[in-house]
């Protein structure tokens, strides 16, 4: 999948334990805000997940906020992909 365009702000996820709440907005470059009890420990890991998802969807940038409630890498990826997909709704290539 490539060449998607973020059209609006969208969120996915919850603040329940083992989940995360991800919000994605259109932006020229990547701006990541990562919060959570262990955000310092997992900062690099989470940045890599975000970069991989943006690359997968062919996105050059995005403003992304993640509130991590102890989510696995799989969960962060799933929430991020859902939020990106929702933010792209109506874009070419959908």
């Amino acid at each position, binding site marked *: 999948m490539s060449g998607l365009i973020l059209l609006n702000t969208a969120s*996915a996820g919850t603040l329940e334990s*083992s989940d995360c709440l991800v919000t994605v907005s259109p932006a020229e470059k990547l701006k990541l805000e990562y919060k959570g009890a262990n955000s310092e420990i997992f900062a690099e890991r989470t940045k890599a997940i975000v970069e991989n998802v943006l690359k997968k969807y062919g996105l050059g940038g995005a403003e992304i906020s993640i509130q991590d409630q102890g*989510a*696995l890498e*799989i*969960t962060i*990826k*799933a929430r991020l*992909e859902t939020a990106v*997909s929702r933010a792209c709704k109506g874009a070419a290539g959908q």
Partner: protein
Amino acid sequence: MKPCRSMLYIPGDSPGMIQHAPVFGADSILLDLEDAVAIAEKDAARKMVACFLQDYDFKDLIVTVRVNGADTEFFDDDLSEIIPCLPAAVRIPKCNGPADVLSADKKIEEIERANSIPVGKVRIHAMIETAVGVENAYHIASACPRVEAITLGGQDLTADMGVKKTKEGWELFYARSRVVVAARAAGVAVYDTVWADINDKEGLLRECRSIVGLGFTGKAAIHPDQIETIHQAFMPDEKELKKAVRIVEAAEKAKNEGKGVISVDGKMVDAPVVARARHLLELADLYGLERSGS
């Protein structure tokens, strides 16, 4: 097929529950994209289940997915995203006849071919939850080789019949019997509906013993606390197990000696009895029971 006594429903949009699935002790799980997920979260649940299927180690759990019904806007997207992630099976809701199964089979085959997956790899568990579905149970179970199991959906069935679902379950007696016979005739597994009262374990055990007696191969659970009770009901008793050991030993001895007919404890034993004995021994292995014929 490995004996599968319990099938635990887990909402597809609940990562906390999905990640803990291997420790609940169920033989299989059913990641639910249908009733357990709000309309607004269908896309999120689908993505969550796909990501877990791709990257999570579920150990030796059998992982199946209940997709949304073919009459919904979500069905095609569910299949397109889930099938390439290779669940053991997808549960198709509201199968009213063989055409519903064949339609799903065709769509799954197209997705398998497009993703270089061997055709037939992802099996179908056809859910029977309408009166017409019950009447067509054998035709549903034998619709195509992809069908691995049929399952009874008691809540929707009783609603369709305009009756109340009770703990005694007499309103489901005919449907259960019909579905079990259909499954056995078609050579597929058969799972019973859920027990809704998670606090009533005595009632659950009573119902489980009843459905084991009818011939069900497994039962769905809606809470991890129900799993132990379900397994308790499927446990072979010691006397039955010892006899099964003697039957299997006698069958193997007869086979080695080129004999077609065997007798155990002075009674003739034929192939279906041997097959049931083998199944009991497989079940016994799940409980770690020692095999001894004496």
